[in-house]
């Protein structure tokens, strides 16, 4: 069983993205294959140089950099969303694959879910 978790919410303004990441880490911890797709405002998770200390939150950039170590398989980013938010491919964290998200991408996973 291969799971895709979609993150379409930007970080910091809400907590559902963090909760999505926790779900991904839990699946990986139990050896269940899991990938993440960032789309819509969710691609802002992938921007470099996040400094949320003044709003009393921890950087999700750091959390996300642990993803490969914890066994998350793929980190996907929706191409149109990256364009909309001015994120160039070369600026994305190492290992992130830019995709044109459509029904075929979805069909390559056994289950697809959101955290909220």
């Amino acid at each position, binding site marked *: 069983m291969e799971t895709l978790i979609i993150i379409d919410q930007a970080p910091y303004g809400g907590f559902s993205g963090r909760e999505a990441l926790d779900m991904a880490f839990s*699946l990986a911890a139990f050896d269940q294959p899991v990938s993440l797709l960032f789309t819509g405002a969710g691609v802002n998770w992938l921007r470099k140089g996040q400094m949320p200390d003044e709003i009393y939150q921890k950087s999700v950039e750091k959390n996300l950099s642990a993803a490969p170590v914890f066994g998350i398989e793929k980190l996907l980013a929706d191409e149109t969303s990256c364009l909309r938010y001015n994120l160039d491919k070369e600026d994305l964290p190492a290992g992130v694959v830019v995709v044109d998200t459509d029904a075929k991408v979805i069909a390559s996973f056994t289950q697809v*879910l959101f*955290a909220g």
Partner: protein
Amino acid sequence: MSDAPDNTFSLVITGAPYSSQAPQTALAFAKAVVDSGHLIDRVFLYGDGVHLASTLIAPPSDELHLPHAWSEFLTEHKVPAVACIASALRRGLVNQEEQDRYELGASNVLPAFEIAGLGEWVESNVKSTRTIYFHAGS
């Protein structure tokens, strides 16, 4: 997948009662699962969904009491229900054990609900025919 009995469902509720419609839709769905002869392996409350397990909700008397309606269903059909511990602690839902551990003044989790980690969700997800999510709509 066939539509025949002995399919098992895992239900995940992430929307709060009296803020989203998720707990009502999930309850109607859960009743239909049981009425159709299928099994519910587990109900998992995540994110804002953990508020459904509160003992302290007191809606106006002419509105459906969702935590009580859910508790009755769970008890009647012996369906286990789990609120995610990380979500619960951040949102003010604690049982006796967490009350003691964090030295809090009270506990407020209905007896039909346990507090446990995401491992419960992973396990249920793996063994169920279908895992269905009930999110806030707005």
